[in-house]
């Protein structure tokens, strides 16, 4: 049994992602959506925390939200980019969904 966590706030101005990372369990999935996608980037002030999270969780990011913000190329290579159909698949794959907003 593992949970899919969704986070929709930027880690630079809000602690939703930090709280999620603190409380998620080993093996859970974390999907970054909307402004949450700013937490899935390489070479930012948040990248060290992201890389720590990658050791314990599977990280996903919603690609259309990256594209809208012009940051597809800045996404961390170890964060899996998914589309809307992939989002639906994840909600089925995990036992439960928890939204951090």
């Amino acid at each position, binding site marked *: 049994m593992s949970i899919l966590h969704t986070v*929709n*706030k*930027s880690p*630079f*101005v809000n602690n939703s992602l930090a709280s999620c990372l603190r409380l998620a369990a080993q093996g859970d999935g974390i999907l970054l959506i*909307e*402004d949450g996608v*700013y937490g899935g*980037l*390489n*070479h*930012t*002030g*948040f*990248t060290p925390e992201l890389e720590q999270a990658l050791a314990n969780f599977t990280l996903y990011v919603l*690609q*259309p*939200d990256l*594209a*809208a*913000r*012009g*940051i*597809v*190329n*800045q996404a961390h290579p170890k964060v899996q980019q998914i*589309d809307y159909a992939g989002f639906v698949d994840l909600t089925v794959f995990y036992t439960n969904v928890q939204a951090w907003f």
Partner: protein
Amino acid sequence: MKKILFIQRRSPYGTGFAKEALDAILMASAFEQEISLVFTDDGVWQLKNQQDTKTLGIKNFSPTFKALELYEVKQIYVEQMALEQRGLQIEDLIIPVTVLATAELRQLIQQHDVILSF
């Protein structure tokens, strides 16, 4: 004529603030005020190039920033610290900007008659 400073601290699509600010800036420019813009915190993401909102079905308003020059809005600033925290360089932005250190931004805020925060 008043010196007006717009301080923009919000990301482009998470809330309506960024779009509202841009509308207010264009409005103010129509009244021939002396306008400065500063982008800091997540506001710098508003200026990121390569934005593509097709899949989201919402309007990409970032090209409008390129029109600001025609409206005589030419003083556009970005706080250096905000760029650095987000791994951004000025080459990643859609328009040319002046980069300010925190102390310079503090001074800039003091030099204006009106401050509008978005």
